[in-house]
């Protein structure tokens, strides 16, 4: 140890210089003779790693095997917000007061401590409040929130299609009585309010938060950031456009405004939802835009049509004929675009019966067929009879009334798709999975993680030798960290399946971004292979 005594010392004049030298000497001695590595490790914690608690704990306690001091400790809540925590150190354990209002889901307590000899040690504990954060950002929302989402979406469809389609009818097909215009304005207002509510509810759904927190800024910010945010904005603009186009003049302006609103309907639908993310994008998006706009023409035209016929049962024949011509084109366009969307989304005949998405599709098509039956009756029987007298006109009004009720039912069914992924999305798992190759010296691992979105992720790994033969490893442990998000590594032990794969389920990779995965493979008692890879988790 004294070999460092030959170290030549400069002349010392100040005590600070003196201390510097002492420190330097200590470091030299420490490095050259005894690089003993410290090892403070977390023995236990409350809540413990992986635990699910029903009531949120006030305190968290971290027990180490030796005295530590805290550099930083924070909790990354299930909504991705990082809260710095104040720690009280009591020798070998530390206590922290947790924030009182954390949203449900998986919370990560990330710590950095310094052991007695000055070596930093870091790690994370993941616990869940209520239930662990769900896969794909689809959280388990309460029945109330789910019903709210459904109602708001239904209101959005009714208001949007009613107002925009109605405005189109009034501007291009035939004028409508004043009371109808008021109804259409009310529909536009319903559309705007529902669109706004949808954003907040979507936020709650993503956070897994209860309805009582609807007024929190966080829920709205979250909803706004999702694809629904932009879509809802376009919906609101379309409704405003329809509202303005209901003015009587100038005709040129209101007419073009109603067309713009119609285009906005399709655009709004193409900005969010399952279909707009499917390939080929150009085809899917075009089909959605057309489908949405044309649906508005048909559905939204029903009320002003009925009103016009009721006001003048016989004189309104030209208007009915004009709508009939437009509606025929509309039905053709709806059928064509609907077929394209269905084929790509559903993929197989069996999926129609076996998936919720398929069952909703059957329900929707049943309602559509009923509406088409009525439309055919209106067009081929009731419309020609109109010339004969007012009786046929009244029957036509009743028929259109039934058709409108069916249209409302149809929109209610369509809303259900918000809650079911199409067979395409569920059958093509590789799309949402990540595959990694992790390389060591004596072994490598083929690792699959799915889904690739923030939430609970499942991992499956095949461990192979350098020559790609399966290795019967004794133990496999994975560590996950996301230092950008402030999440220090937390570890999960893999379980061996009968086919020799190693799996870890429900890994809380709850924050989007670049994660680092370490694999520690125990090949034999004395041989461990360490591998590292990075993966990108989408929001």
């Amino acid at each position: 140890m004294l070999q460092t005594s030959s170290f030549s010392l400069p002349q010392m004049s100040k005590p600070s210089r003196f201390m510097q030298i002492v420190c330097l000497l200590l470091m030299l001695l420490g490095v050259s003779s005894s690089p003993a590595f410290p090892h403070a490790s977390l023995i236990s914690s409350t809540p413990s790693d992986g635990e699910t608690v029903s009531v949120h704990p006030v305190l968290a306690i971290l027990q180490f095997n030796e005295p530590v001091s805290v550099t930083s400790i924070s909790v990354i809540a299930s909504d991705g917000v990082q809260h710095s925590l104040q720690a009280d150190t009591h020798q070998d354990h530390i206590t922290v007061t947790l924030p009182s209002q954390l949203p449900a889901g998986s919370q990560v307590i990330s710590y950095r401590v310094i052991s007695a000899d000055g070596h930093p040690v870091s790690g994370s504990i993941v616990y869940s409040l209520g239930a662990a954060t769900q896969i794909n950002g689809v959280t388990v929302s309460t029945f109330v929130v789910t019903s709210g989402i459904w109602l708001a979406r239904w209101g959005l469809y009714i208001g949007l299609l009613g107002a925009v389609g109605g405005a189109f009818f009034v501007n291009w097909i035939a004028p409508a009585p004043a009371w109808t215009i008021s109804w259409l304005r009310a529909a536009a207002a319903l559309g705007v309010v529902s669109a706004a509510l949808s954003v907040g509810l979507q936020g709650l759904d993503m956070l897994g938060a209860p309805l009582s927190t609807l007024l929190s800024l966080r829920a709205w910010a979250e909803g706004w950031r999702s694809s629904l945010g932009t879509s809802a904005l376009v919906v609101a603009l379309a409704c405003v456009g329809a509202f303005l186009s209901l003015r009587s003049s100038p005709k040129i302006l209101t007419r073009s405004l109603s067309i713009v609103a119609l285009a906005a309907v399709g655009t709004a639908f193409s900005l969010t939802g399952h279909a707009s993310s499917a390939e080929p994008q150009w085809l899917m998006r075009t089909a959605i835009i057309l489908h949405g706009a044309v649906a508005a023409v048909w559905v939204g035209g029903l009320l002003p049509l009925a009103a016009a016929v009721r006001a003048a049962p016989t004189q309104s024949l030209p208007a009915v004929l004009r709508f009939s011509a437009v509606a025929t084109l509309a039905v053709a366009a709806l059928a064509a675009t609907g077929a394209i969307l269905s084929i790509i989304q559903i993929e197989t005949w069996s999926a129609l019966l076996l998936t919720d998405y398929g069952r909703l599709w059957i329900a929707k098509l049943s309602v559509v067929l009923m509406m088409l039956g009525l439309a055919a009756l209106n067009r081929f029987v009731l419309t020609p009879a109109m010339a004969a007298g007012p009786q046929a006109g009244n029957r036509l009004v009743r028929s259109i009334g039934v058709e409108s009720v069916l249209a409302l039912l149809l929109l209610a069914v369509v809303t259900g798709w918000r809650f079911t992924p199409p067979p395409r999305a569920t059958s093509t798992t590789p799309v949402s999975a990540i595959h990694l190759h992790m390389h060591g010296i004596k072994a490598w691992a083929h690792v699959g993680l799915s889904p690739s979105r923030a939430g609970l992720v499942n991992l499956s790994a095949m461990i192979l030798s350098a020559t790609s033969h399966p290795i019967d490893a004794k133990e496999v442990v994975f560590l996950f960290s996301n230092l950008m998000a402030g999440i220090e590594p937390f570890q999960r032990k893999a379980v061996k399946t009968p086919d020799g794969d190693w799996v870890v389920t429900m890994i809380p990779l709850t924050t989007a971004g670049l994660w680092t995965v370490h694999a520690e493979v125990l090949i034999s008692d004395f041989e461990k292979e360490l591998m590292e890879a990075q993966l990108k988790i989408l929001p």
Partner: protein
Amino acid sequence: MRKTKKVIGLGVFFLSVAAPVTVLAHATLEQQKAAVGSSYKAVIKVPHGCGSEPTLRLRVQVPDGMVSVKPMQKPGWQLDVVKKSYDKAYQYRRGASLTEGVREIKWTGKLSNDDYDEFVFVGYLSDTLKPDTVLYFPVIQECEKGSERWIEIPAEGKTSRDYRFPAPGLKLMLPSSN
């Protein structure tokens, strides 16, 4: 020069104070430098059990190139060795060729988590070992539940500091000229 001595004295003093703290750490070797072609007494320092449990067995893997290994008995501990052939024949002192010997040592007993202990064996560092490299002695601490495996060997460009459970390492030096 008086001042210099004082500084060194202080340094040694600080180190002696710091030392008991620094050994509250990984399983490590007491003497972490040795010349190839010489005898080496390995003292494995074990500062604690697995987390909070006592250590019930300590296993050391004798690295390739360390031959003619003899472990030291410990009172209260049962000693077992695993003898196997070496990866190749090694030249020992005076031209003797060794092809087999102790490859693993096991001490079975009980070391409370609150206590510190040392495990000793001697052997010869073959002159075929490369100076300026590190020879690693993987150690397993077996406890009531689970074990702590000090078996991680740094990859190229990394040091033991980059690992959570590094194997104790011995820096090999050039043979001394005399």
